């Protein structure tokens, strides 16, 4: 199982001292956090993509290319790459380029983006969100798998005899996770292609995500990629830890109370009860995270949101120490207990390369 972190890349004023990072500071902090993720033994760093303040990461492959040069092992990913407003030709090129630079340590998570005004900045219309996600991904899928593409669709100019360059490393396209928090169409899309499905599992009660993941697993089997239990599932999570539980609650509360997404609403205690947020000791984080398997089945990737709502970099790095030293080693061990042999790991460049070279096996 893979463990990592995902970041939104928000620039938020620290409510405890009123300071706000500059864009420069925030971008550099995101890189520092990514490097720290590798240092503490995490597997994945994923960055969001946004094109409006207060968010800084508008160009994920630029950032991930920089991180790739300074890491050895870390898988670089996104959370999410906007499949609706980015030209699929540019996504195909950018991520293939990144794959080469990072020696294959690359995958990506596609998402639609939910802010209406962003779409027209890129010549699109949010009312076409789902059709855009379907058509653009179908083209992206082809561009990575066919050397020469003839293509015509609704949303971009036709392609004739087009070859996207560079070709994917070793002829193996990056693995794709489809991220969605509310659309059965996207769960269906992930299942159809046999791709991964990621539910951010933050902000809302788990039952909400259980429906989508249940649907994805069932349809994954329907399309003949394996059993429902073998579908490739990723989950988010949100935690804040201190060795003593009450210290974690006291320290995180002002960040919670003023957080852009849920602040000025329910209390921290209510939100912890109703959503997967865990604020407490490392042991509490371990216990809570292990319950995800009961709700969603054995899964492949767990990403934590650690650096939002104005938390200072120093605090985030301390959180990553706790995550890497005290939480993830236990989670690796505990998640392995009772995990059926038939449940696969998350695909990596190496595993996909090996599979592409293996002789075809007919399934009874």
């Amino acid at each position, binding site marked *: 199982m893979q463990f990592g972190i995902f970041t939104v890349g928000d620039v938020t004023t620290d409510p405890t001292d009123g300071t706000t990072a500059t864009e420069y500071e925030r971008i550099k902090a995101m890189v520092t956090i990514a490097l720290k993720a590798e240092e503490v033994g995490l597997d994945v760093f994923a960055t969001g993509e946004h094109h409006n303040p207060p968010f800084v990461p508008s160009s994920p492959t630029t950032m991930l290319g920089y991180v790739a040069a300074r890491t050895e092992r870390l898988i670089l990913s996104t959370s999410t790459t906007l499949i609706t407003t980015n030209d699929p030709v540019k996504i195909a090129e950018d991520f293939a380029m990144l794959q080469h630079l990072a020696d294959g340590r690359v995958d990506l998570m596609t998402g639609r983006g939910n802010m209406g005004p962003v779409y027209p900045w890129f010549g699109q219309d949010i009312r076409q969100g*789902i*059709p855009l996600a*379907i*058509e653009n991904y*179908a083209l992206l899928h082809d561009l990575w798998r066919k050397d020469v593409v003839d293509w*015509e*669709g*609704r949303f971009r100019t036709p392609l004739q005899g087009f070859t996207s360059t560079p070709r994917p490393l070793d002829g193996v396209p990056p693995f794709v996770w489809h991220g969605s928090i509310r659309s*059965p*169409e996207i769960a*269906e*899309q992930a*299942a*159809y292609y046999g791709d991964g499905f990621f539910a951010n599992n933050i*902000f*809302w*009660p788990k039952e*909400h995500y259980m*429906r989508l993941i249940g*649907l994805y697993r069932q*349809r994954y089997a329907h*399309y003949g990629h394996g059993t429902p239990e073998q579908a490739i599932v990723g989950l988010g999570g949100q935690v804040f830890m201190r060795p003593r539980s009450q210290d974690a609650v006291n320290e995180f509360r002002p960040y919670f109370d003023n957080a852009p*997404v*849920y*602040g*000025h*609403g*329910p209390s921290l205690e*209510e*939100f912890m009860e*109703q*959503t997967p947020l865990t604020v407490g000791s490392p042991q509490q984080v371990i216990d809570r995270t292990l319950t995800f398997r009961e709700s969603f089945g054995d899964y492949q990737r767990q990403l934590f949101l650690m650096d939002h709502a104005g938390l200072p970099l120093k605090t985030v790095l301390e959180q990553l120490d706790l995550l890497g030293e005290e939480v993830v080693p236990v989670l690796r061990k505990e998640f392995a207990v009772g995990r059926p042999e038939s449940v696969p790991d998350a695909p990596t460049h190496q595993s996909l390369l090996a599979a592409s070279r293996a002789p075809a096996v007919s399934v009874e």
Partner: protein
Amino acid sequence: MRTLAVVSAGLTVPSSTRLLADRLAAAVGGQTPVTVEIVELRDLAGDIANNFVTGFASPRLAAALSTVADADGLIAVTPIFTASYSGLFKSFFDVLDQEALTGRPVLIAATGGTARHSLALEHALRPLFTYLRAVVVPTAVYAASEDWASSGSDDLAHRIARAAGELAELMEGRPPTQPPAEETVIPFEQQLAALRPRPKE
């Protein structure tokens, strides 16, 4: 037996809004056998505000929303504030699923200090429920302070009886509300096919 949900947006305890709601519910019960389920919005005020902030309903609010969505009929009663329904009343229906009341018989009622506000029922509540595709009974019931002491052929008791009769008749005339259908998947091939370029004319 059919279920009748009653939403009351009164703010005081006891409130004249709740009193009107109870009288309407009892009058419907006198016409047709119903199980009455009361939703007091005052008790849910914080949960409703939180739903706006977080995008999801607390368990308590979710239960109230289900009560309304699963009922066979609805009585909705609000005090009139500043020329319209109260903000709390509107907020509850803002967080209710937009499809939840489609085709559902609804009786609208309101309270206020003066009869001069009575048409708020017609210009505010009726369009709200029409927008939600509910079937709103013709008689809306408004109770001003003076109505609680009135008598005569068009007094409050008569209006309550007439509106309740209309709601009871509509509830009896429709099949019981079914639980919402499971989410259906549009098979992916169909989604893709819908995007294929149309053949040129």
